[in-house]
C-alpha cells in the first residue's frame, strides 16, 4: 500500500496559559489520497485545532507540544513559515465554516477565484479567468461570467459557499480541509452543498478532511472517521463499521442520540451524563499513564 497523503502522529497541544490544559491528547490519523476522513466531535473536542495545526494556523493561546504532521512525507510542523506557505498554498485548501465572512467584501468574486491560480500556477489573467469560469460552472453557478464581476454581498449564502468550494478546488490541491462547511447554512442548502463537496472530491480525486460536530453529516460524506472527545481519539476506522457496529460507549451514545443519522435535520439529544463521566475518567486515566511514562 502506498504511504498515506496525510499522516498525523502523536499530536499533542496544550493551552499556553498557566492551566496548561491539554487540548489534543496523542491524536493520530491517516488520510489516503482521494479519501474523505471525518473528524467528529462536540464543540471543544479539539477537532478544529487539528485542522488549524495542519494549516499552521494554531491560535496564539495554544501550543503544539509534540507530534508530527506529514503531508506527502514532509513534516509540516518542522517547516519554516515560508516553505509552509508555499506547500499549503499550492497543495492544500480550506472550505471555511461561514461563507458570509470568508469572502473579501471589497474584492470581486473573479479576483478571489483567480489570485491563487496566478500566484502558484503562474497562469495569465486570461487563462486564470477561463479556469475560474469552468470552476463556477462545475459548482453549478448560473451565469458564471456575470458572477465573476459581482461582489460577495451580491450573492446568497449558498452561492457564496459554492464559490468558496470552487476556490478550494481551483488549484487541484491534494488535500482540502472542510471546517464545518454546512453549519452556517439553511438545512435545504446543507444537503446540496454536502453533495457538491462529495461530487467535486470524487471528480478531482482529492483527499478531504471533514471537520464536523454532526454525526448525520459525517455519515453522508465520510469514508473513515475519527471520534474526538476532550482532544482524545475515542474511536477510529471505516465510517460504515463505526456507524453499524460502534465499539466505544461514547460512539454508541452519539448514535443513540441521533436516531436518524441519515437525516442531518433532526436535532440530537444530549449524551447521557454517565457516558460523559466514563469518558472523562478514561481521558484522565490516559493522562496519568502518560505522566508515568514521561
Amino acid at each position, binding site marked *: 500500500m502506498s504511504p498515506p497523503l496525510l499522516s498525523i502522529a502523536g499530536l499533542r497541544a496544550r493551552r499556553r496559559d498557566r492551566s496548561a490544559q491539554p487540548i489534543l491528547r496523542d491524536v493520530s490519523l491517516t488520510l489516503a489520497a482521494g479519501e474523505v476522513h471525518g473528524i467528529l466531535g462536540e464543540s471543544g473536542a479539539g477537532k478544529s485545532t487539528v485542522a488549524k495545526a495542519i494549516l499552521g494556523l494554531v491560535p496564539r493561546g495554544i501550543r503544539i507540544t509534540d507530534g508530527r504532521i506529514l503531508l506527502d512525507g514532509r513534516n509540516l510542523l518542522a517547516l519554516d513559515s515560508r516553505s509552509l506557505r508555499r506547500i499549503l498554498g499550492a497543495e492544500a485548501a*480550506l472550505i471555511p465554516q461561514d461563507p458570509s465572512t470568508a469572502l473579501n467584501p471589497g474584492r470581486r468574486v473573479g479576483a478571489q477565484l483567480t489570485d491563487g491560480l496566478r500566484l502558484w500556477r503562474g497562469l495569465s489573467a486570461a487563462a486564470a479567468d477561463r479556469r475560474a469560469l469552468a470552476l463556477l460552472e462545475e459548482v453549478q453557478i448560473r451565469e458564471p461570467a456575470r458572477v465573476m464581476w459581482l461582489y460577495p454581498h451580491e450573492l446568497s449564502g449558498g452561492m457564496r459557499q459554492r464559490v468558496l468550494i470552487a476556490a478550494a478546488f481551483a488549484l487541484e490541491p491534494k488535500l482540502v480541509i472542510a471546517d464545518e462547511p454546512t453549519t452556517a447554512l439553511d438545512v435545504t442548502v446543507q444537503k446540496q452543498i454536502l453533495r457538491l463537496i462529495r461530487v467535486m472530491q470524487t471528480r478531482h480525486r482529492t483527499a478531504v478532511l471533514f471537520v464536523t460536530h454532526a454525526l448525520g453529516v459525517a455519515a453522508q460524506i465520510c469514508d473513515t472517521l475519527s471520534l474526538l472527545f476532550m482532544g482524545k481519539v475515542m474511536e477510529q476506522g471505516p465510517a460504515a463499521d463505526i456507524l453499524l457496529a460502534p465499539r466505544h460507549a461514547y460512539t454508541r451514545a452519539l448514535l443513540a442520540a441521533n436516531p436518524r443519522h441519515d437525516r442531518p435535520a433532526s436535532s440530537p439529544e444530549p449524551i447521557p451524563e454517565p457516558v460523559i463521566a466514563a469518558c472523562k475518567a478514561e481521558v484522565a486515566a490516559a493522562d496519568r499513564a502518560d505522566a508515568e511514562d514521561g
Partner: protein
Amino acid sequence: MLAAIVLRRSLMTIVTLFGVAIVVFLLLRVAPGDPIAMMISPGAGPDDVAALRARYGLDAPPLIQFWIWLHGILMGDFGTSISLRLDVLSLLAERLPATLELSGLALALGVFLGGAIAVIATLLRRSFVAGLIDAVNGLLLAVPDFVWALAFVLVLGVLIPVLPLSGRIDPALETTFVTRFYLVENLVSGRLALAGDILRHMAMPSLALALPLAAVIARILKEALAEAMQQDYVLLARVKGFSELRLVLGEALRNAVGPTLALTGVQFTFLIGGTVIVERIFSYPGIGNMAIDAVINRDLPLIQGLVLVFGLMFLVVNLVIDLAVVALNPKLRHG
C-alpha cells in the same frame, strides 16, 4: 446614486455658505476694532473719518450693509480691501492657488505617511517595534503643526540650513508664470529645476501641516487594519499561501480605508485651518498668511471674503471625503 449625492450635497453647501456669510458678517460687526481708525493718518478730523466711512459704505445700517455685500457676492463682486485698496476677488484669486498647492501637498504627505506608519505597524504587530511605533505616533498626535513648523525652522532652516526659510520661490530665479499654480505649472511644463525649488520651499510648511494628520490617520487606520486582519477572508487568504505584506495590502487595506476616511475626515479640515499660522511662520504667500494681515488691519471686506473661501474649502473637502467613503465601499456604491 453618486450623482444624486453630489447634487444634494452641493445644494446643502450653498445653504451652509449662506449661513457662514451671515455669521461672519454679524461677528465682525460685533467684534471690537474699527477699520477706519486703522487707516486714517494722524491729524485727520471727524469729517475725514465720516467721509471714509461713507466711501466704504460703513455708515449704512448693518442690514443694508449685509444686503449690499450679499448682492455683490452674487454678482461676483466681493468688495474692495480696505487695507490693500484692491479688489477682494482678485486678491483671493492671486493667493488661493498657493494655499491649495500647499494644503494639497500636505494632504498627500499626511495620507502617505499615516498609511505607511499604519501598514508597517500592522506588519510588525508581533514585534517590539510595534510598541516603538506607537510611542512615536503618540508624540506626533500630541504636537501641533505650528510647533513642528518652529522646530523645522530652527533645525533645518537655521542649525543645518538645508531648506529655504520663507517664501514660495527663490526671487533670484528669473521666471514668468502663466498661472498661479506654480508647482503644478512647472511639473506639467517640465521645468523640473524650478519645480524642485518650489518643492524645497514647500517642504517644511507642508510637512508641519502633514504630521498631525499623519498621526491621526496612522492611529485609526492601524485599528481598522487590526480588525480586518482578524476576519475570515484574511485567514482564507493566508491558507492560499499569500505573504503577510499581500494580506495587509491586498486583502485588509481596501476594507480598512473606508472606515478610516470616515473617522479622519474632520482632521483634513484642521489641516486647512492650520495653513493660517503655518503660512505665517514661513512667510508663504497664501490666503492663510493674508488672513492674519486682514484681521490685524480690521479689513472687513477681505476677512469676509477669506472666511467664505475657507468655508467653501471645508465644505468641498467634506463632500469629497463623503463621496470617497461611498465609492470605496462596494455595498454602498451599488445601493
